[in-house]
């Protein structure tokens, strides 16, 4: 194994289809028009010395090292900024060039510390490499002149010297090593799109400045690390590299945070992870990352991680560490005896959206083939189940229609109920890049998210609707499109059912669905809606991206279908740049759904009642499968409270914290006889568990994750599981303990089984993934290399289906007791319930959940910024600190749910989506009052949690 060194072509690839041939140092090379001489040279393996150029950002031409000579042209143009021209003859090494380069390097080194041997970048420093490449042997200028290197100069303090900035938890900024190449500044602007860095001053005084000469942590920096990756020296350096040293080998794997599914090189020294570097060939992220993926992996070695299996009779007992054999046989016996006493259906399981496809497949197989029922569900129940239902009904597949590259060809984007700069940061950067190129953005969100307005980004329209009125607003957009004749009749006649369209068109044209009428419900000015509809319908390639603000409502499925209607009516499907794109929350929530995690569906979204599908699995698994759908998560909990459901196997999912109505979840878990939690940490659910099986991190196993664009990415093991087994092995051992004859020795065999049983995965195997890097399903005989864009020549279901989307308001209403609407969301530095990110340095940015409240509402209640407030709903109450902001409208409050202490889900109600039971997290009627601190419930909860996390001291067995 060696360190993967990606080729740096110096400048980005040109997109032209026309090619040009030039000659570099005697070699002919043919490249697309617009390619730089530098890149063309690299294509034939000729490295022109360079410092300020790197292929993640546009050419800049400042370092004066990449100069070349071109026959018939004067001077020595820089090869990074000079495009190729047909017949050009280029020389990259001549006496004249050698002299210039040496002179330039000499100047650089005259203001650079000579501490190479003890420098963190030693061995990975482009300045060092270039000094070697140009043959620098001495510096005639000496080191006594003006410089940025020495703290004292000629007996006085050196005013130019700036101390190292260590404020960011993950990297340092050492101005004394800066060569002012501007790569960091350009990476922040072009790749990340935050514009947090600049070069301050001029001439010799120039230095990189975060914000307005601030430190990194206080500046606008979002810590994505693009600058660190771009820095050619140790000026911006990962603290982990400073601590550990340079990595010696690397493995390409996939991030385990959000649904973007970024590819990374895990750079290792032995079995120690030195750093994560985004992989340029990663088709989802194209070499970029966010603070979570690049830096927040510390949880994998956090002291809270549980590495030994544990059991206990009662949840009031302390945990007892036991051997794997004991834990698994204990569980198997418990489950079997529960089934003997209470029936086959008295146990079930929950698959994890954070584990691999293979692991998820095995858990549902264990439940269907081992437990003999269909009581399997997954966290997608509480996030994107309406997406599955809505898109399957209208298009025929339960997934997004595009790949992420598609955004590069989009002209107008509608973004609904999603906050990509926080939830899906790498996609947000790609979207922002397109917006800076001139694409239009329409935001539909109760809150003014960053994309509504931030440096260089301004949405054409922000529809700040009242939470819960998505359907009405979307229908009013369609109203404008239909009544103003802006729909794409040709597309609809060719691709969709024309009769259904006419019914739908008549429905949306009804005056009660006009923006003017809907304004009374939604609070969105009719003119804004009309403008947005016109921009979307007339703007060229229109794409819709959406998140949980769409699905987590009692009309979540209706909203998804309203989105599908809008895309079909405007002809925005079946080609790059358009489409309906759910931004999936977790790394493998798409995969978990694909792998048959739902009680009514076998892998590949096929109903359990379908004889032919069951037959396929029954033949391979050698058992009879139940043809009745099993219980969903809320039904399992209801049944537990009623006493008919007694045991559950939960892999990598914290239902107590993430599911709505915490008290009901707690009651359900408390009523069970055997709760098995398989996780990295003693999560909140484990407070009610009887068996704890330690889990493995994404760094410790092989497998695949499927991201929001249906892309199957490889996850590769970079270190041994600290707990002894990868999660798929644990599930297999549990299955064996229950008497099943499973003998997988590698996840690739599980993938082969998936391919053999599931048509959309028929062509997938590990060899193909190894060759191609990744594949987007469907991948089968018809599409052997996968499917980047779906529904190209027609919809999967045949004709696209328009569904009438009647607006039925939620039963959750504001009133005199609960006059405000609470909606929830995410923040960049934290992920989901925070189990991972809270155990990293990311807490530097977000220590606690805060309640956002409008100044008007705050003043009425006597709430000041930073005050503790009591947040109460019909379901319960909690306390947290308030922050006053006009990002939310009057009447709306907002919070995140990353910290268990806040328990935002004590507040949320048990209203759910009519079709899929997806809970209505995004609308709760609440009241806010000043308070003194945590609520009684929070104090009690903390006590109970602490009590239930006790682990008994280990007693060595007498043998």
């Amino acid at each position, binding site marked *: 194994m060696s360190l993967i060194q990606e080729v740096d072509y110096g400048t980005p690839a040109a997109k032209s289809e026309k090619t040009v041939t030039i000659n570099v140092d005697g070699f002919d090379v043919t490249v697309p028009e617009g390619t730089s001489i530098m890149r063309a040279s690299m294509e034939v393996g000729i490295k022109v010395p360079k410092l300020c150029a790197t292929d993640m950002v546009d050419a800049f031409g400042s370092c004066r090292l990449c100069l070349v000579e071109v026959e018939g042209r004067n001077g020595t143009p820089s090869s990074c900024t000079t495009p190729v021209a047909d017949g050009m003859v280029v020389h990259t090494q001549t006496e004249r060039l050698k002299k210039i380069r040496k002179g330039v390097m000499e100047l650089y080194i005259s203001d650079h510390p000579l501490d190479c041997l003890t420098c963190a970048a030693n061995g990975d420093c482009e300045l060092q490499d270039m000094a070697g490449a140009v043959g620098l042997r001495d510096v005639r200028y000496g080191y006594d002149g003006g410089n940025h290197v020495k703290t004292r100069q000629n007996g006085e303090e050196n005013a130019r010297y700036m101390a190292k900035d260590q404020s960011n938890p993950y990297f340092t900024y050492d101005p004394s090593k800066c060569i002012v190449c501007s790569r960091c500044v350009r990476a922040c602007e072009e790749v990340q799109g935050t514009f947090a860095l600049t070069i*301050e*001053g*001029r001439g010799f005084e120039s230095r990189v400045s975060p914000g307005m000469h601030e430190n990194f942590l206080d500046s606008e920096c979002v810590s994505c690390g693009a600058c660190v990756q771009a820095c050619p020296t140790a000026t911006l350096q990962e603290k982990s590299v400073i601590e550990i040293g340079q990595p010696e080998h690397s493995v390409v794997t996939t991030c385990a945070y959000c649904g973007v599914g970024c590819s990374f090189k895990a750079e290792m020294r032995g079995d120690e992870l030195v750093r994560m570097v985004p992989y340029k060939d990663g088709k989802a992220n194209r070499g970029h990352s966010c603070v979570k993926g690049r830096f927040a992996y510390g949880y994998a070695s956090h002291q809270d991680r549980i590495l030994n299996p544990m059991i206990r009779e009662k949840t009031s007992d302390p945990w007892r560490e036991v051997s794997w054999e004991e834990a698994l046989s204990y569980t198997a016996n418990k489950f079997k005896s529960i089934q003997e006493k209470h029936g086959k259906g008295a146990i079930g399981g929950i698959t994890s959206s954070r584990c691999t496809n293979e692991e998820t497949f095995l858990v549902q197989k264990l439940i269907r083939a081992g437990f003999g029922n269909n009581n399997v569900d997954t966290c997608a129940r509480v996030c994107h189940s309406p997406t599955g239902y809505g898109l399957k009904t209208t298009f025929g597949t339960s997934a997004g229609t595009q790949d992420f590259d598609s955004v590069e060809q989009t002209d107008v984007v509608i973004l609904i109920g999603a906050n990509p700069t926080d939830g899906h940061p790498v996609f947000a950067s790609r979207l922002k890049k397109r917006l800076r190129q001139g694409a239009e953005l329409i935001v539909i969100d109760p809150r003014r998210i960053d994309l509504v307005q931030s440096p260089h980004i301004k949405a054409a329209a922000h529809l700040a609707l009242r939470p819960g009125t998505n359907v009405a607003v979307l229908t009013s957009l369609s109203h404008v499109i239909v009544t103003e004749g802006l729909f794409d009749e040709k597309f609809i006649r060719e691709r969709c059912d024309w009769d259904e369209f006419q019914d739908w068109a008549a429905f949306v044209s009804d005056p009660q669905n006009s923006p003017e009428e809907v304004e009374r419900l939604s609070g969105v000015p009719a003119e804004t809606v009309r403008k947005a509809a016109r921009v979307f319908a007339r703007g060229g390639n229109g794409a819709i991206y959406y998140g949980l603000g769409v699905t987590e409502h009692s009309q979540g499925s209706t909203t998804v279908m309203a989105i599908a209607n809008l895309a079909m009516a405007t002809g925005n499907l079946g080609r790059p740049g358009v489409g309906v794109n759910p931004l999936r929350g977790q790394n493998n929530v798409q995969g978990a759904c694909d792998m048959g995690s739902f009680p009514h569906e076998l892998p590949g979204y096929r109903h359990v009642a379908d004889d032919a599908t069951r037959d396929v699995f029954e033949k391979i698994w050698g058992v009879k499968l139940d043809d009745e759908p099993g219980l969903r998560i809320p039904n399992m909990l209801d049944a537990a409270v009623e006493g008919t459901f007694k045991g559950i196997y939960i892999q990598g999912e914290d239902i107590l914290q993430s599911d709505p109505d915490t008290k009901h979840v707690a009651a359900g878990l408390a009523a069970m006889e055997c709760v098995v939690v398989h996780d990295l940490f003693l999560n909140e659910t484990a407070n009610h568990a009887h068996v704890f099986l330690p889990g493995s991190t994404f760094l410790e196993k092989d497998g695949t994750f499927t991201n929001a664009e249906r892309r199957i990415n490889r996850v590769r093991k970079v270190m041994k599981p600290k707990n002894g087994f990868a999660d798929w092995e644990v599930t297999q051992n549990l299955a064996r303990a229950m008497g099943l004859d499973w003998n997988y020795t590698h996840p690739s065999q599980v993938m082969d089984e998936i391919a053999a049983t599931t048509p959309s995965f028929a062509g997938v195997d590990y060899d193909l993934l190894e060759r191609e890097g990744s594949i987007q399903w469907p991948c089968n005989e018809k599409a052997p290399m996968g499917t980047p864009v779906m529904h190209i020549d027609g919809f999967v279901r045949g004709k696209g289906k328009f569904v009438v989307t009647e607006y039925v308001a939620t039963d959750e209403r504001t009133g005199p007791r609960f006059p405000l609407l609470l909606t929830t969301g995410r923040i960049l530095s934290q992920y989901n319930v925070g189990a991972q990110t809270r155990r990293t340095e990311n807490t530097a940015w977000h220590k606690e959940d805060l309640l956002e409240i409008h100044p008007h509402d705050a003043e009425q209640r006597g709430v000041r910024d930073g005050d503790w407030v009591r947040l109460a709903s019909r379901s319960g109450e909690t306390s947290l600190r308030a922050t006053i902001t006009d990002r939310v409208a009057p009447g709306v409050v907002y919070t995140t749910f990353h910290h268990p202490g806040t328990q935002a889900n004590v507040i949320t109600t048990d209203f759910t989506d009519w079709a899929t039971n997806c809970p209505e997290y995004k609308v709760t009627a609440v009241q806010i009052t000043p308070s003194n601190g945590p609520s009684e419930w929070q104090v009690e909860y903390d006590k109970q949690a602490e009590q239930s996390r006790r682990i008994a001291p280990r007693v060595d067995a007498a043998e």
Partner: protein
Amino acid sequence: MSLTEMTEEISNRVGAICDGLAGIEGPLLPILHEVQDEYGFIPDGALQTIAKRLNLSRAEVHGVASFYHDFREEKPGKHVIKICRAEACQAMGADDVADHAKRKLKVGWSETTRDQNVTLEPVYCLGLCACAPAAMVDGKVIGRVSKDRLDRILSEVGS
């Protein structure tokens, strides 16, 4: 005026300047000039306001403002004297004149006298090389500046 009132006042006035100029192409430099004309320097908080109004990052505005030495960070004295230090003026003895000025005013470059009367600044070419050494007093250019002439200027401005 309290600190918050002052910040609010600056933000309002700078905001009004931005509104007046935001429509033109490349409005940042004209806005910075007008702010400096208004206050004599770029006050704290002005850059944040400009960044917000122009939809730029704080960093970008800081990068531009700090690039030009003409934009001051601190309030200057009642009078600003700029002495040219470019080649032609140096050749004609500008350094002596400058040293003389520093001694008399007891300030260094870009500093203000203790009585807040005069700020002494270097400038690189006023386009008056034919009459070197050149200086600029409160926006007015003056040629052939000798030590004596400088003394007269200083007494005119009351230092």
